[in-house]
């Protein structure tokens, strides 16, 4: 097809120029060279009548107003003259909609013809191109087909004598639609310049059927194709071709376009940019005009200008050069402005809004305006991450070998649709964007084509950067899958176009289609569908086909039905909290406003279905409303109904009777009736309940894991409830006594020492320690370094009384004291471990339980008479948690204060001097548990003496049980 396209160019030029000249005067003049009369309407009529007269024998009733499918069309076109006649007859007013079915052979031919015979039709192409908006490329394909048909008349004609007429009829039919299209394009098409560029490339691309709507326009020359065009959905047929025709909010449109323009420096470099710049400048002018435009007529001046642009561009188009000399001035201006800007900060554009407002259309139109080729990925495609990655890479890296060298723009439609797959897409994009941010520094301001090469070279190396605009489209901005995307993307929320705008457009279309409507009815329709243009058009077309008129009163019964649309949850909350203005009631004037409101809310809430979340949101926000409530009765009622909602929810979940959920929407309505206000509510996402749940779980977890660390003889008596209720506050008081002076332990009085010992034992038994807030506690080192850091309880029990806005009267131990405590506790722990497991288990109990103690000592002691000191050491060990801990505490503090205290050593020496004589004897005779205990004890003394660090190496000397004693590694090193 491409080749075909290229060949005819010179011819096209000629034609174009001729046409253009004509255009300047009047657009309609274009047609004279071709079969059209100037007045299209008239011509249509004439032609129809022309053709109708012969086939009068056919029965009009046979033509059913019902469905028109492509298949039907084709069959119709192909059949013998009779069929054609029938067709024509049926729809003088309706334009041939009604058609009887005919043989199918011919249509096939027709199809093939389209493909084959593209060259001849090209004459028409250029003309077509000029007229329509920049965007539509598919038109060409269609034209070929149509043109082919026309040319072929002689070839296929032999079927019957009447053929000639019949064929002519077809063409004429084609013309009629064409004319309409032309009008459309005229009205909208200010920005025609890019078309030249587009033309060459556009032909190469096979576009989605949706875009074919515009295709009708090109067929100016050859009438016969009409039926095809005719049966298109109006939605497609009247889809905006140019930026100015967009119905969506002007502001949004322009921002989207600006965003796309920001890519220019990155994508095109300065030189290539010219064409789009022109477009933009033209756009701006036009859009400003379009804002003021009330009627379609006002479009014409614009169109003329557009055609002028078009001409200029066209002259250069042969060279395939994008420079547009005519637009230099504008371009320069624009360059100055935009040169400094690199690719936009946010590399993704996220469009969201309810269906039918034209998001996809906007994306396509805007991208085309800016000279991009649109690659669309929607929910119907495979969107797994690998596929999408390949696709994006394709967009970013590849330049098509074919003539269409425009850069591509990726449009990911319905990105919120699929959960699993859609996420894949989001992930890939996120990955690319983040990769981009890292590597993207130097790439920003390349004004030249070098940039182009360089970037492409770079692309080859690192695949993962995003160099082309990506537009994502979604309905629900708050879909969970989009959460990460929301943060990095530039988000545009579509708002409904004003009713006026929609209505004027609808009216225009209706006029074109020859449908009689009143603007009141159209307004009603627009409001009913909430300005969903797509559904408006579909409805109108449906009615038109049935030959019914739009009736305001019967709107709800006529229209196929209201969309089963679930709104975003924010909208639902808004509806609940905000009184609607009377606007809504007008659509159903027959029913009471209250009941319609009820119905509306009910369907809204039940369509959404996420009752739990809705109720949460209501609960979170309703107190912020300013409703009049002197004695809180409304509030009580609201909370009561929330309570009921909670009860029913819980009940239906527990008993799995989901049918009970039908009663949930009523609760929202109750709240609405009670507190709804006219002014706009300020709605926040309900976080507090979720936050409450998660923090509660966290705290429960810390408690539970803490209880697991506490020795069982204590922990079994603690339950979370009783602990929180009874124990936390006193425990905190006990653990931070205000009487303890923060001085070196050596300086403490006896009483204070015993207090300290008591405190340490309490902390150890509850396995509480102080922890550096930043680092995990390493008492050996951090006591010197981290003096400035705050120490907090290790299981963060103080958090449990740390209510917001509450100052607890807890005394906080000074930092120095905390450090001492950390050290003491650590020491105490090591001591406990090293005194042996058996002791450890009993440790807590045996001080006051003489029974156990007796049992333990009377336990296995084979070498009874061996050592007199053995029992004493044991008893020493046993009795005295207090004494040992005081000793240890002395050591700790002394080291802490960095004073080498003599006292510990002396005590250690004393112990040792006591021991040595029997040192080895003892081991030989009592290598049992008892001896181990004593040994450990001695060992512990040594530990204290030589090194205060808690690290303990155990080396078992010898290879039998004969001699087994732990030795410090230092002893080997020395």
């Amino acid at each position, binding site marked *: 097809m491409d080749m075909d396209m290229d060949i005819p160019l010179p011819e096209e030029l000629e034609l174009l120029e001729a046409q253009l000249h004509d255009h300047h005067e009047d657009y309609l003049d274009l047609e004279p060279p071709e079969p059209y009369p100037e007045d299209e309407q008239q011509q249509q009529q004439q032609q129809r009548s022309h053709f109708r007269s012969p086939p009068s024998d056919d029965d009009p009733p046979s033509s059913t107003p019902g469905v028109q499918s492509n298949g039907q069309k084709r069959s119709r076109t192909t059949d013998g003259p009779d069929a054609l006649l029938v067709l024509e007859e049926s729809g003088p007013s309706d334009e041939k909609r009604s058609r009887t079915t005919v043989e199918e052979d011919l249509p096939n031919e027709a199809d093939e013809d389209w493909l084959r015979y593209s060259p001849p039709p090209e004459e028409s192409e250029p003309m077509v191109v000029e007229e329509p908006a920049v965007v539509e490329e598919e038109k060409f394909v269609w034209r070929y087909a149509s043109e082919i048909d026309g040319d072929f008349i002689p070839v296929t004609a032999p079927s019957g004598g009447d053929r000639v007429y019949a064929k002519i009829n077809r063409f004429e039919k084609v013309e009629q639609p064409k004319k309409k299209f032309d009008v459309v394009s005229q009205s909208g098409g200010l920005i025609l310049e890019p078309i030249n560029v587009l033309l060459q490339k556009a032909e190469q691309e096979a576009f989605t059927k949706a875009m074919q709507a515009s295709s009708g326009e090109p067929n100016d020359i050859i009438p016969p194709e009409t039926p095809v065009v005719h049966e298109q959905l109006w939605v497609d047929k009247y889809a905006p071709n140019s930026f100015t025709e967009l119905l969506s909010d002007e502001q949004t449109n322009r921002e989207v376009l600006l965003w796309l323009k920001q890519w220019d420096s990155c994508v095109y470099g300065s030189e290539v940019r010219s064409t789009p710049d022109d477009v933009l400048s033209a756009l701006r002018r036009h859009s400003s005009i379009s804002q003021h435009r009330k009627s379609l007529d006002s479009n014409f001046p614009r169109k003329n200008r557009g055609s002028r642009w078009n001409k200029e561009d066209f002259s250069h188009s042969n060279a395939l050069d994008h420079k547009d000399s005519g637009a230099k001035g504008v371009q320069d201006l624009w360059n100055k402005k935009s040169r400094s800007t690199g690719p936009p900060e946010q590399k993704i554009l996220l469009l969201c809004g309810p269906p039918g407002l034209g998001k996809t259309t906007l994306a396509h139109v805007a991208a085309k305006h800016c000279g991009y080729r649109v690659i669309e990925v929607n929910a119907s495609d495979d969107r797994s991450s690998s596929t999408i990655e390949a696709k994006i890479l394709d967009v970013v890296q590849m330049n098509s070998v074919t003539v269409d060298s425009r850069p591509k723009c990726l449009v990911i439609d319905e990105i919120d649709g699929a959960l699993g797959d859609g996420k894949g897409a989001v992930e890939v994009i996120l990955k690319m964007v983040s990769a981009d941010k890292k590597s993207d520094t130097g790439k920003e301001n390349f004004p030249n084509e070098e940039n182009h090469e360089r970037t492409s070279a770079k692309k080859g190396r690192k695949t993962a950067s995003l160099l082309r605009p990506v537009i994502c489209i979604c309905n629900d901005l708050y879909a969970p899958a989009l959460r990460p995307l929301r943060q990095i993307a530039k988000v545009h929320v579509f708002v409904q176009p004003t009713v006026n705008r929609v209505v004027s457009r609808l009216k225009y279309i209706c006029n074109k289609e020859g449908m009689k409507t009143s603007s009141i009815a159209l307004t009603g329709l627009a409001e009913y569908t909430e300005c969903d243009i797509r559904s408006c058009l579909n409805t109108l077309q449906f009615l038109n086909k049935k030959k019914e008129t739009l009736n305001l009163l019967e709107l709800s019964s006529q229209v196929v039905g209201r969309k089963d649309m679930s709104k975003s949850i924010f909208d639902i909350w808004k509806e609940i909290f905000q009184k609607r203005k009377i606007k809504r009631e007008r659509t159903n004037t027959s029913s009471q406003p209250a009941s319609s409101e009820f119905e509306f809310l009910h369907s809204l809430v039940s369509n959404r279905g996420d009752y739990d979340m809705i109720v949460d949101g209501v609960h979170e926000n309703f107190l912020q409303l300013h*409703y009049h409530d002197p004695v809180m009765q409304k509030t009580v009622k609201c909370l009561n109904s929330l309570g009921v909602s909670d009860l029913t929810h819980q009940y239906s979940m527990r008993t799995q009777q989901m049918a009970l959920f039908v009663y949930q929407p009523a609760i929202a309505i109750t709240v609405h009736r009670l507190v709804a206000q006219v002014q706009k509510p300020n709605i926040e996402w309900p976080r507090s309940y979720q936050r409450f749940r998660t923090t509660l779980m966290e705290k429960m977890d810390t408690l539970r894991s803490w209880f697991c660390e506490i020795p069982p003889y204590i922990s079994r008596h603690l339950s979370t409830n009783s602990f929180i*209720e009874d124990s936390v506050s006193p425990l905190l*008081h006990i653990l931070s006594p205000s009487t303890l002076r923060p001085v070196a332990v050596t300086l403490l009085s006896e009483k204070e020492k015993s207090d300290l010992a008591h405190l340490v034992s309490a902390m150890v038994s509850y396995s509480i320690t102080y922890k550096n807030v930043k680092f995990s506690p390493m008492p050996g080192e951090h006591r010197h370094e981290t003096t400035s850091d705050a120490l907090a309880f290790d299981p963060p029990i103080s958090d449990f009384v740390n209510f917001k806005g509450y100052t607890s009267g807890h005394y906080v131990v000074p930092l120095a004291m905390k450090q001492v405590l950390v050290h003491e506790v650590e020491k105490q722990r090591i001591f406990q471990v090293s005194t042996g497991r058996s002791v450890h288990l009993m440790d807590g109990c045996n001080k006051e339980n003489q029974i156990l103690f007796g049992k333990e000592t009377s336990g296995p002691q084979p070498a009874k008479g061996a050592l007199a000191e053995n029992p004493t050491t044991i008893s020493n060990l046993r009795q005295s948690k207090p004494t040992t801990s005081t000793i240890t505490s002395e050591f700790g503090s002394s080291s802490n204060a960095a004073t080498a205290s003599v006292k510990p050593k002396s005590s250690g020496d004393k112990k040792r001097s006591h021991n040595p004589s029997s040192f080895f004897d003892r081991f030989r005779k009592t290598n049992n548990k008892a001896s181990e205990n004593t040994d450990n004890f001695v060992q512990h003394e040594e530990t204290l003496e030589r090194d205060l660090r808690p690290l303990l190496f155990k080396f078992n000397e010898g290879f039998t049980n004969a001699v087994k004693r732990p030795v410090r590694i230092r002893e080997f090193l020395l």
Partner: protein
Amino acid sequence: MLWVDKYRPRTLDQIMVHQDVAQNLKKLVTEQDCPHLLFYGPSGSGKKTLIMAIICQMFGPSAEKVKVENRTWKVEAGSRNIDLELTTLSSTNHVELNPSDAGFQDRYIVQEIIKEMAKNRPIDTKGKKGFKVLVLNEVDKLSREAQHSLRRTMEKYSTYCRLILCCNSSSKVTEAIRSRCLNVRIKAPTEEQIVKVLEFIGKKEGLQIPSGFAARIAEKSNRSLRRAILSFETCRVQQYPFTSNQSIPPMDWEEYISEIASDIMKEQSPKRLYQVRLKLYELLVNCIPPEIILKRLLYELLKKLDIELKHEVCHWAAYYEHRMRLGQKAIFHLEAFVAKFMSIYKAFLIATFG
């Protein structure tokens, strides 16, 4: 080591508060025939202590040697496998566990794990004491299904397994289970008993207690022995030579609730209600059960309330507590109570003072 733990009685003989119960239990145990037991009573009354003392009486000091086990059980429930994590304390003869930790999956714990434990007969060479003991805590938090599955286990394996159940409120334990157990009610200790215990501890620690001081602590303790002993020790830590008018540090959450109560009394409006909600969330977040919050809040409000309103307010408190237990989101119902109170109180104020 805190005094609570240090002076916890370890045998039935040492028990001071519920001596009559202890003596009966002792007789029961010495006769070698011990039924299933269900202990219920408020927290801080000594249920756990009694249970441990009984076990000690049954098996001797070996029951003191327990090991903590945090085990993951794989349970087959229909088509899927469920992993349950459960912490148990076990000695050779008894196992303690807290089945309600598993939340809504507690049924599987009862059906699989407890049954399996109950099935396995302890190997005892001497042939006597042929039973082991399972201690289940917080039975009242078990779901209904779990309790139903428990009752058959109790019957079937009763020859060599005894269950000791422990809970706060027997009303949440199904009839079926209650009828299979010997119910032992452990009431909260009276203030005199608390005083006696405190004095005992004081003597052991060699402290001078001014007269009336112990009584004051007991009075503030809400008849919870644990709380009494803890605040006693707190006082000791804060200021030793006791003075009889020494301040006894309050529970923080109770203080907080009384702040909330005074907030409510000061102003009644949706805005204030919103602030109260935030504070209630604070309490809830810190693991304080909503029932207790409601109870305490009512208590604080009643203190400041005109006598005419007390009845009505109590009624509504009960009403909302009921709904709270039926429902799931406690905050809704707590808040509804506060709103209701505000409404009543404001109407009352308007009626009284115009």
